[in-house]
């Protein structure tokens, strides 16, 4: 919960190289979006981790509820046929 004394929280997503997707790196506090980007650059890309940064207000993230875990995820546990492991892959296809 942010109080007036505290800057809002932002979630930081960093793309490590072109073609890969942005991955969640962590979070930080910043007064606004522009400063959040700058802080993210300083906190999360100091060791050349990134080529692109997204920052998202943490309050804008909609999360699934932990106590719904069973309902949401348990049903897929016994449906192994959803994994693509039941097919013979011809050698010509190469690496998939």
């Amino acid at each position: 919960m942010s109080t007036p004394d505290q800057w809002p929280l932002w979630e930081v997503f960093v793309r490590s190289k072109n073609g890969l997707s942005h991955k969640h790196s962590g979070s930080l506090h910043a007064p606004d979006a522009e400063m959040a980007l700058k802080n993210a650059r300083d906190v999360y890309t100091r060791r050349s981790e990134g080529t692109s940064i997204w920052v998202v207000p943490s309050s804008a993230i909609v999360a699934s509820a932990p106590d719904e875990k069973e309902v949401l995820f348990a049903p897929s546990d016994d449906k192994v046929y959803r994994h693509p492991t039941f097919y013979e892959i011809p050698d010509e296809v190469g690496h998939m």
Partner: protein
Amino acid sequence: MKWDTCDASVQYLLHLGDDALILGHRLSEWCGHGPILEEDIALSNLALDLVGLARQYYQLAAQRIGNGMTEDRIAYWRSDREFRNHVLVEQPNGDFGDTMARQFYFDAFHFLQLEALQHSSDIELAAIARKAIKETTYHAQHSSEWVVRLGDGTDESRARITASLAKFWPFTSELFEPSSVDRAAHAAGWGPDVASLRGPWLDLVQEVLEQAELQLPEGHAKLLRGKSGIHSESLGFLLAEMQSLPRAYPDATW
């Protein structure tokens, strides 16, 4: 070692390196004391950029002096009268607004200086400048963003950044007052005529102040000669701390 009779290109490198080292050291004093974790890391990053830049200038100077000269000897075994940085960069950190005001004035100057140095006839110096200008562009954005936010923030932040900008204003005139080394460097095509940077610098500063809804400070210029080795008392204290370890333990390695 007589530093002021060195080759002019070496003296110019020492001047450039001293600005970077002294301001970098000042910023490193914030490490662990930043107003917020994120800004603490940002200030330490700026410090590292500047100390790294100082090393490049000193390494090149040491190579040109020869006779086993090293970057450490240049950084740790000169006295305050032998440092050639602007008096602005040695000023104490004060509060966060003071640090940002000092940084904001210097970053705008540093950016213009490096822009010119990229085209230096000294190709090794030009190579250092081309690398450094990327970092300095970021530094200038960072300090400008803060001046805007403090100026356009609360009543208190506005009053404090206004006071900080006024406090360092008299130190800015030295940036554009050429020393004999600046003149020699300009004549040789190594660096810009610093007096000519004043106009573009004022434009950069004014643009940000307008955004921050702040006025350009008024006040008289100080007559400062840091570039000739005449410093404020602050530099002596800074050097005493920065140089204490190698002077107490000359054989120490780290």
